[in-house]
């Protein structure tokens, strides 16, 4: 009660006094409530999310229909364009032979191991280069030169040194995944809001604490988009690795079926690559949504 009265007094005071203070209310706003409007609009979007997903299926269904129509009418002969049904049957057939599962499994395994290894290394080197001027001066020219080598050019060396085995394939994929992560992380760390970095220093954060509490959280969005690029690269390099030297996997299925004129299997491999690539990308998308909610 007493406090209320007090407030009342203060309010009365402030009206009589404001005339004398000419220079008031000048200040810097850091963040403001302006963000609220944005999130409200997003809430509207979430409401229609099901629609967005549904719309995304429209074009694939149309494509499938067109494909079926073209092959059913014989517009393009079957030896040039197998029908969707024959591709489906080829899949059933491969599954019955016990090949489909292992092929998909080994490809996914290679991508995941290569992606994790490459992204991990990219994250470490990217952090080093992004945070330390010295490391940057030392490493950037060399890394730039390595990056300039078209990654497939490493294949002969990888095969020579590592042999035709899992190691060489996974290494190639890791090389493909490394550079997108390195580039985005190094760039983002260099551009973390200097105000926030200074704030961390002012409040006594050491180098590692600063990295953990300020710099890394600030670059989470960039890291995720780097990971997304890296994952796409990983699938690219998987196919390259398996096309060149493999006895299993979707890339092998591609080259093997093309050699044997089994176009239905070629189409099957392509469709599987599309589905798997899109699925892993969607998983990262989920991770992204989760992380962005937590870290921005």
């Amino acid at each position, binding site marked *: 009660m007493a406090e209320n009265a007090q407030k009342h007094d203060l309010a009365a005071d402030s009206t009589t006094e404001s005339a004398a203070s000419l220079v008031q209310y000048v200040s810097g*706003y850091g963040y*403001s409530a302006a963000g609220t409007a944005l999130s409200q609009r997003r809430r509207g979007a979430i409401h229609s999310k099901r629609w967005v997903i549904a719309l995304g299926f429209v074009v694939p269904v149309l494509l499938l229909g067109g494909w079926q129509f073209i092959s059913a009418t014989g517009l393009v002969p079957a030896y040039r364009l197998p029908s969707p049904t024959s591709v489906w049957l080829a899949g059933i057939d491969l599954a019955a032979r016990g090949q489909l599962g292992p092929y998909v499994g080994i490809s996914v395994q290679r991508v995941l191991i290569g992606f994790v290894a490459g992204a991990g290394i990219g994250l470490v080197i990217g952090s080093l280069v992004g945070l330390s001027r010295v490391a940057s001066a030392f490493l950037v020219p060399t890394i730039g030169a390595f990056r300039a080598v078209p990654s497939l050019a490493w294949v002969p060396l990888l095969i020579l040194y590592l042999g035709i085995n899992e190691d060489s394939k996974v290494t190639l994929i890791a090389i493909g995944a490394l550079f997108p992560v390195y580039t985005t992380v190094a760039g983002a760390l260099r551009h973390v809001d200097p105000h926030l970095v200074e704030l961390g220093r002012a409040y006594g954060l050491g180098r590692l604490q600063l990295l953990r509490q300020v710099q890394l959280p600030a670059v989470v969005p960039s890291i995720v988009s780097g990971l997304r690029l890296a994952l796409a690269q990983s699938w690219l390099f998987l196919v390259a690795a398996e096309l060149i030297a493999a006895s299993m996997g979707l890339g092998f299925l591609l080259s093997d079926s093309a050699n044997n004129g089994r176009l239905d299997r070629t189409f099957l491999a392509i469709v599987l690559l599309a589905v798997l690539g899109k699925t892993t990308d969607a998983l990262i998308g989920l991770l992204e949504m989760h992380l962005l909610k937590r870290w921005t």
Partner: protein
Amino acid sequence: MTSATAIPGRSAPALSVSLVDVERSFAGATSKDPPRRVLRDVSLEITPGEIVALIGASGSGKSTLLRQVGGLDVPDRGSVRIDGSALTGIDQRSAIAFQEPRLLPWRSIEANVDLGLPKGTPRGERRDRVAELLELVQLTDAASLRPRQVSGGMAQRASLARALARGPGVLLLDEPFGALDALTRLTMQDLLLDIHAAEPATILFVTHDVEEALYLADRVVLLGVESGYASNSGAVIRSVITVPGTRPRDRGDSSLAHLRAELLEGLGVSTHHPVHTF
């Protein structure tokens, strides 16, 4: 007003601050431009527990001066000492609330204030202290919100709470109440005085508000370019005004009218007729 707003004793004792002939220049916009001098010959002795207000026109170097005292920036010439020892980089004996709130966007208000607590504060105590500080700056309801979900004034109070959390020997506040409405501003001013009365830190604060300076400070330092000098010759201390009387002061104290006029004049505001008495 002096209810139990004091933070239980964990803060460091107040420390003296001494500036001697501080000078700071910044490089010109391009390499061809001459360096722009912002501060020149700034000398100031602040005794432990004193409250000093820094006023001056926009761009006169107030924030720059505060940064020298915090060790966030190094003078080109002259020296800065806290408690008699010269600064070597960022100084943990002082805590600063920046002109912008500078809250970490991915942390709740609560967690942002926690950042201000001294190293090695035990976990349980941290939670209590943060709750206490949020209560003081009237942000209890916003504790779990993110910075983007609060208003500019709320963010500024969070930033103030973070600086208070440190319980520093020297408290540096850059326009701490600039974004607040009149009522909250007055409440926060009294809060600052309460905290100071309970645990007298040395406080150096920047303000644009002459009333605020006269209400809070022991001395008011007016920063500005000397008349007759080019604007890039650097700001000096134009005058230091000792505010008479003891705190808490009467906000409408008519005996301060001439100081008010003098300061406004110093800021370049012409007071055509003498400030009317209340």
